[in-house]
């Protein structure tokens, strides 16, 4: 059941790591420009859901449809190309290449797509400006604060103008003030770019930045909008 008008949807996903089931019949959908929070206790399978939706791991069973295409039938190379071109990613930590400067980090996805270095870095600077961290452009990740680093990561995730932004605990390593700011900038930028956001978090206050919430428990998803 693909909800009408959805950009990315998944039905009855199953995925096991060894004998431990991580997903046990989870479903999901997100519309263009919509921000959906995926909540649930740790170990519930929410990150696995994100990895499946983003085409990073292949589910054992179930279907994933992105923009009318069956994601599970794509080859690894095709899925990589999709992630490169149409998806953006923000993780909790450890995502910036420590040797590259911040602006080079942000420009990286563009350069992976074949954009020339100068153009890529120009666009990267614009994104850094939007996230109010253009002052650290020339520094390396090790030389900036956690909040700044995460904003650089958000800038990087948005630099390719992705249609879907996947954020896995984007504020998990930040204090609440920095977390707030990152969420605000992230959602503002995403809304401005009309990017759909899949936001995995266990914090209600972070989830509150979304339009809708899906809860994952024991590998099964539950759309909270339908419980009324």
């Amino acid at each position, binding site marked *: 059941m693909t909800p009408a008008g959805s950009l990315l949807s998944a039905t009855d996903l199953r995925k096991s790591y060894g004998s431990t089931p991580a997903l046990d019949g989870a479903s999901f959908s997100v519309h263009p420009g919509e921000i959906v929070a995926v909540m649930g206790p740790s170990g519930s399978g929410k990150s696995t859901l994100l990895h499946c939706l983003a085409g990073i791991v292949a589910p054992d069973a179930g279907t994933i449809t992105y923009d009318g295409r069956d994601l599970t039938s794509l080859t690894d190379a095709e899925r990589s190309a999709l992630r490169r071109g149409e998806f953006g990613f923000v993780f909790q930590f450890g995502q910036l290449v420590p040797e590259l400067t911040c602006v080079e980090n942000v420009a990286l996805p563009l350069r992976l797509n074949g954009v020339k270095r100068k153009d890529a870095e120009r666009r990267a600077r614009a994104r850094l400006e939007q996230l109010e961290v253009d002052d650290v452009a020339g520094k390396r990740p090790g030389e900036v604060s956690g909040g700044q680093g995460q904003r650089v990561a958000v800038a990087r995730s948005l630099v390719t103008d992705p249609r879907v932004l996947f954020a896995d605990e984007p504020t998990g390593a930040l204090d609440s003030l920095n977390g707030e700011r990152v969420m605000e900038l992230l959602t503002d930028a995403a809304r401005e770019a009309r990017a759909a956001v899949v936001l995995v978090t266990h914090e209600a206050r972070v989830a509150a930045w979304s339009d809708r919430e899906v809860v994952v428990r024991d590998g099964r998803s539950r759309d*909270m909008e339908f419980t009324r």
Partner: protein
Amino acid sequence: MSIGHTLLGLLEAGPRHGYDLKRTFDETFGHDKPLHYGQVYSTMSRLLKNGLVEVDGVESGGGPERKRYAITEAGVTDVQRWLATPEKPEPYLQSTLYTKVVLALLTHRDAAEILDAQRAEHLRMMRMLTDRKRKGDLADQLICDHALFHLEADLRWLELTAARLDRLAREVRPA
């Protein structure tokens, strides 16, 4: 929140008319509930009676009576004392939600459903507050955050309870 102390505190900056007081209060604190003018009037007369304020002057003319109030020495002392006294933390020991959950368990209704419904409701409220925060100024943000933190605490309780429903059911249901 003590409206009397708040108004007294506002008077410390200098004498004001009653209408002035209401407007300043609304702007600073009364985002959700603006004061009725009658509330101001009754509060001020109580403060007058206790000698914490005095009438500084009356402007006569058309419309309502326009008294100017000023804080007394006793009033300043009272504000000082109020500010210095910590508020008693609210323990929320009596919870309607808890009652609902236990009742549902006792009557073999779906307690998880109740928790989830409540969770959705809480989140809806949190989203609303977040949205307001986004559009508002710093004052809005602080006030909304206060509420958001409380709601988040409730939500955590909901999650925790949901995870412990089985144990709770065993304990509350007669063997």
